[in-house]
């Protein structure tokens, strides 16, 4: 069927503008970007003497609003798309016109995204990813839901006629089997079992960043007044530290919980014949799809709390395309073992039917890491104790050295590398356990690294490069690494791999 035979072909034949909501969304986006960049400047204005603050602030805000409005209007009226001659064409820009053409058969994924504002206007943001190395990603800020669905259906239908039929993906099959749906109860459990330390780190970083930015912007008076007001607490620093730590832990817990709920609210993880689709989000609803031929690696992990509840965080990595790195992997928290198995079965059906040949890593891994992380710092602490004549560093060293030994030994024992003729699977991690699986046909290159110490012991670190990330295996016998290379060399799987 040719392009023009389709009853709906005429709809996108002529230049089509985005939905009217796009104007508001572009305005909101630009305005927020401005605020993000110049918020310190606004603070300065707010802290100016009251007499001339109001008028100056008013003028600056008005000028800003006018600039942003003009830019939004230009962006709205100069951006249009159409389908012409088997290509999707996006034109934008007033002074320097930009024209982006994508042959329809090269379109890989069409992703919808809905922020709170989008939902108000029943619109979606569309992102189109292609397989080419040179093409840029195509995105439209807002299109009405109905029109967006018609566009997606049209693009998918047309693409399937072309050579990329096999690369068809999940979103062309709206039906499919729901693997996972998180209700509020599950979501709270997932939130509670998240890594709160990471949030603590982010909060600390944000706090310090905000403080240094404020002190730079507001000058010495700000820091001095802080010191004056807080001066008496400085005297009782242990108390301050305690209060600060407890507050930080509580805040981290709360922030992680809120972030998890906001990000994964209404999560739906669907498996269809040709891929996976995940949609979730409270304020901004993201929908992401991954097509099976593009899956490079599956990773799943669980910290002790998650293990206790039987939860895994599952991540599917896809290669190719040019969407941002974050979008290149699909993350589904709160999966049970059955769902992980279903995903592995769906992604790499051959891989899990064959028996695994299991290998451990060398105990030298623990010894070397203990030497650098445990023994050397221990000796430095002992030297400090001797020089300062204080016993405190010695006490710290007496705890640190055996703890590091235990920790590194457990870490080494936790490693397991499993290979079979179809692929590789690895498990590692003492606190959080990580698992990764990838078939040989997705391994692009193999690197063997050897330090002088490893050369003497016949050991090496192996890196297996896939199109999305690298699998690193430390301290394995050279013979095993060569076997990996051997399998990469012989397999018929290599020949049948589609690039």
């Amino acid at each position, binding site marked *: 069927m040719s392009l023009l035979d389709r009853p709906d072909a005429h709809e996108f034949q002529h230049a089509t503008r985005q939905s009217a909501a796009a104007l508001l969304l572009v305005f909101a986006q630009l305005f927020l970007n401005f605020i993000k960049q110049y918020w310190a400047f606004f603070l300065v204005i707010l802290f100016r003497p009251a007499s001339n603050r109001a008028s100056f602030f008013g003028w600056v805000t008005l000028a800003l609003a006018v600039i942003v409005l003009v830019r939004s209007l230009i962006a709205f009226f100069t951006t249009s798309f159409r389908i012409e001659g088997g290509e999707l064409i996006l034109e934008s820009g007033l002074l320097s016109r930009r024209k982006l053409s994508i042959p329809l058969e090269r379109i890989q994924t069409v992703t919808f995204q809905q922020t709170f504002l989008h939902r108000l206007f029943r619109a979606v943001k569309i992102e189109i990813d292609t397989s080419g190395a040179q093409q840029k990603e195509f995105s439209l800020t807002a299109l009405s839901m109905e029109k967006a669905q018609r566009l997606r259906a049209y693009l998918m239908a047309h693409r399937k006629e072309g050579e990329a039929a096999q690369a068809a993906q999940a979103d062309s099959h709206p039906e499919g089997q729901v693997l996972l749906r998180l209700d509020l109860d599950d979501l709270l459990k997932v939130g509670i079992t998240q890594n709160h330390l990471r949030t603590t780190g982010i909060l600390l970083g944000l706090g310090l960043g905000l403080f240094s930015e404020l002190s730079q912007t507001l000058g010495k008076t700000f820091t001095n007044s802080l010191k004056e007001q807080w001066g008496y607490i400085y005297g009782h620093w242990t108390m301050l530290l305690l209060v600060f730590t407890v507050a930080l832990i509580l805040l981290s817990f709360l922030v992680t919980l809120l972030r998890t709920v906001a990000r994964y609210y209404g999560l739906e993880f669907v498996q269809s014949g040709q891929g996976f689709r995940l949609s979730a989000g409270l304020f901004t609803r993201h929908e992401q799809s991954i097509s099976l031929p593009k899956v490079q690696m599956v990773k799943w992990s669980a910290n002790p709390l998650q293990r206790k509840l039987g939860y895994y965080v599952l991540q599917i990595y896809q290669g190719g395309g040019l969407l941002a790195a974050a979008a290149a992997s699909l993350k589904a928290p709160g999966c049970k073992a059955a769902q992980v198995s279903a995903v592995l079965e769906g992604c790499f059906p051959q891989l899990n039917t064959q028996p695994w040949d299991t290998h451990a890593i060398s105990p030298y891994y623990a010894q070397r890491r203990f030497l650098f992380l445990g023994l050397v710092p221990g000796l430095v602490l002992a030297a400090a104790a001797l020089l300062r004549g204080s016993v405190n560093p010695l006490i710290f060293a007496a705890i640190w050295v055996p703890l590091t030994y235990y920790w590194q030994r457990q870490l080494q024992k936790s490693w397991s590398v499993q290979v079979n003729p179809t692929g590789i699977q690895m498990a590692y991690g003492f606190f959080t356990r990580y698992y990764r699986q990838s078939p040989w046909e997705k391994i692009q290159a193999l690197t063997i*690294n050897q330090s002088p110490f490893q050369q003497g012991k016949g050991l090496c670190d192996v890196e297996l490069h896939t199109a999305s990330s*690298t699998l690193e295996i430390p301290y394995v016998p050279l013979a095993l690494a060569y076997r990996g290379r051997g399998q990469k060399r012989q397999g018929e799987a290599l020949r049948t791999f589609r690039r």
Partner: protein
Amino acid sequence: MLFENPPVPLDQLPALDPAIGQTLAPQTLRVRLIGNAIFWIVLLVVQTISWAVAFKGGHWAWYPLALLAWACLWLLSRWLTKKRFQRERFALRERDLTHWKGFWWRKERTVPFVRVQHVAVEQGPIQKRFGICSLQVHTASSEGDIALEGLSLEDAERVKAFITLKTDADEPA
């Protein structure tokens, strides 16, 4: 004849030893030593200026010691550059390309031809002066690329043609 499928012990797998590999063009060493010299001379200038600024023009009596340290480090770096060059090799086989490099810390990377996305030959002005070039072999993984820096132009074109031919031949129908 009966069908046989005996297991292959690890130690009987065909070895891929650097000894079978080919070295880079000999001019490459000269280009690398020139680059190395430029780096150390720039460092000397920076070191001298820093000394003058830090000690406000004084303490020149100690400067020969700093100069000696600089000279020793340069010699060590020259020696390492030579050793690295002598050890750097590459080997083309029926189905893959392997590249060995590093002297103390060794790195060996293998890329099967069927994984090659594209091959590029590049030549900078200094390389042009010495008649050498770089051959870049790109895969879908940006971390899994191979760069052979220092092949003669004819060799690079031959290797490129060979890889391209192999890539096309291994392409699934």
